[in-house]
């Protein structure tokens, strides 16, 4: 249990973690750290749902592409490396891989091309899962036979619990605003209750994050979950969206790059919808090549907020966006990719 923060005086440098890739981007884009030098150390956590997708999962998607399926996904996933290739490389090799903005676009593609078997690769946290649930429901209602979903959804509370169980040392947490729009603040109350953490659900404008940092500073000794993003987040969240998730998905154990298998941290498609579950409908087993992990890669420590990208020996030297080594550089929302793009 991390209760040592109760003993710290407000004059020492506070360590606050934000766990949403979009928050990380705003912090760096507006160079907010420059306001807090010496007072607050802002670190990023494991909040990029794409960076945490394991190589084995990318290998599975590539295998589907090689088998002739049309793979449709969000742009975020295209450059993530598997053990030997990536979707971008397979696209160049002529595989049918498409980028969409919305899962409904993937369904429309299936409708417009009845001779293609479309697999939509669903990534994202609780913000995106309800949209995919509704898309699956629509596919069933309209009797679309050539559409299925590979769910790689991850959920936030369990990764945060794992983080604190490994003894990470933080004074406060900035929680993902749009995930909480869906879930509400309730699922995160364990952070204050079990770990004595002061956490704030923050909006995405720079002033939102700055206000959230002040709320943490003022309430260090009153651990609780505070909502700064009042215009979009409530305690109970969006019940309609939560119902949609519950209807189509169930919690499952999931693999997180750099963290390993975490219990109940993913979303699997329920039996009743297995016709639209690519894993059930099209079971294949790709060959995974053994990946030699670069021992100098600091992604695990970076995602736990122990190190910043600047402290990794590979950062900017061998590890760059065009030649990423670890997960934090592979996605444009990873901490290292953000530091590389904005300087810190």
């Amino acid at each position, binding site marked *: 249990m991390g209760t040592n923060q109760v003993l710290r005086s407000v004059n020492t440098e506070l360590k606050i973690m934000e766990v949403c890739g979009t928050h990380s981007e705003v912090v760096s884009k507006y160079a907010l750290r420059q306001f807090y030098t010496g007072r607050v150390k802002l670190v990023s956590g494991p909040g990029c749902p794409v960076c945490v997708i394991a190589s084995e999962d990318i290998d599975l998607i590539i295998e589907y592409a090689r088998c002739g399926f049309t793979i449709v996904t969000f742009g975020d996933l295209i450059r993530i490396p598997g053990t030997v290739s990536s979707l971008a490389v397979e696209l160049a090799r002529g595989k049918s891989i498409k980028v969409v*903005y919305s899962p409904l676009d993937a369904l429309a593609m299936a409708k417009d091309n009845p001779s293609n078997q479309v697999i939509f690769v669903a990534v994202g946290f609780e913000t995106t899962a309800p949209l995919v649930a509704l898309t699956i429901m629509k596919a069933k209602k309209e009797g679309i036979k050539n559409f299925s979903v590979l769910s790689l959804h991850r959920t936030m509370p369990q990764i945060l619990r794992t983080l604190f169980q490994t003894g990470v040392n933080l004074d406060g947490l900035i929680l993902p605003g749009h995930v909480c729009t869906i879930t509400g603040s309730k699922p995160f109350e364990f952070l204050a209750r079990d770990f004595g953490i002061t956490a704030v659900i923050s909006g995405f404008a720079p002033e939102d994050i700055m206000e959230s940092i002040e709320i943490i500073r003022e309430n260090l000794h009153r651990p609780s979950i505070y909502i700064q993003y009042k215009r979009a987040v409530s305690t109970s969240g969006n019940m309609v969206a939560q119902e949609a998730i519950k209807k189509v998905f169930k919690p499952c154990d999931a693999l997180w790059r750099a963290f390993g298998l975490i219990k109940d941290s993913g979303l699997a498609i329920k039996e009743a919808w297995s016709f639209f579950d690519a894993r059930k409908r099209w079971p294949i087993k790709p060959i995974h090549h053994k990946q030699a992990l670069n021992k100098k890669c600091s992604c695990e420590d970076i995602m736990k907020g122990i190190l910043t990208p600047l402290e990794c020996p590979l950062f900017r030297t061998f590890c760059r966006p065009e030649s990423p080594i670890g997960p934090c550089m592979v996605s444009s929302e990873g901490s290292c990719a953000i530091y590389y793009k904005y300087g810190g």
Partner: protein
Amino acid sequence: MDIVLSAHGGGGKLTEELIQEVFLNEFDSDILNEMEDSAVLDIDFNKLAFTTDSYTVKPLFFPGGDIGRLAVCGTINDLLTRGAVPLFLSASFIIEEGFRLYDLKRIASSMARTCREAGVKIVAGDTKVVARGDADGIFINTSGAGYVPFGVNISVKNAKPGDKVIISGTIGDHGMAVLSSREDFTFDPPLESDCAPLVDIVNTLRSFGESVRVLRDPTRAGVAEVLYNISRASGVGIEIYEEKLPVKPQVASACNMLGLDFLQLANEGKLVAVVESSAAAKILEAIKKCKNGREAAIIGTVNDSGQITARTALGTSRILSRPVGELVPRIC
């Protein structure tokens, strides 16, 4: 016959008919009409500026332009950024069998109109026809030649610390216009590509002599790439002011929605000018009087840091890094 056939690429009678009906008819160029193997051009020059570019844009027709207009503007603007007076273009077409003649004429007509607007002539050309599926409709290559007036020495290597950076108008219009015609959203009022020849602006700039150090047109990879090119070639750093960047609200809004950076979006009718600091205000006023320069702004200052940085609305400073690869819409 309403479509292009592979026989039209055979080099014989049908080829001549196609060239006559579409290209000679539209381009109305006396030199081209001679149908010689080469154009012999009688011009007086000190230095010749010469450039080439190929155009593969999709879709072929987009709000505010088409591949033809793009093919003329892109090459003319590349000549203009060296301070040259553009004179002549060549135009080569690689056309897919089955391409509609109606569309081909539209493209040729658009090229002719743009040439008249810019005061240039198409003097050489070529046409090839390939199998269906081999050319994404049509590919166009244009090469351009112009003369550099005596005393004009505009180069990407000329930027010096203290110089000011000016952009001639709103950023990212072309990239977003093309993207929106591919994706499922619309703009109200409609967003058009900024595709335009920048002859007026460069004519104005030449009168400022050596105060104009660098000119670049930010096409693919956007303003961010141009700043990087200038920084590297001149061995300087550049600081831009985010609040001063002219951008249409629709473009900014769409970028927010799709997770894109407008500094990395394509432009086809804009200039980035690096100018001597003491002349910057006068140069800006002069550009603003030009038809395509009304929204020009001073957006930054050159320094000796060797880095490209941006001063945010909050007064903090961050790095502006070089674009890598293609922009794709994101959800994260």
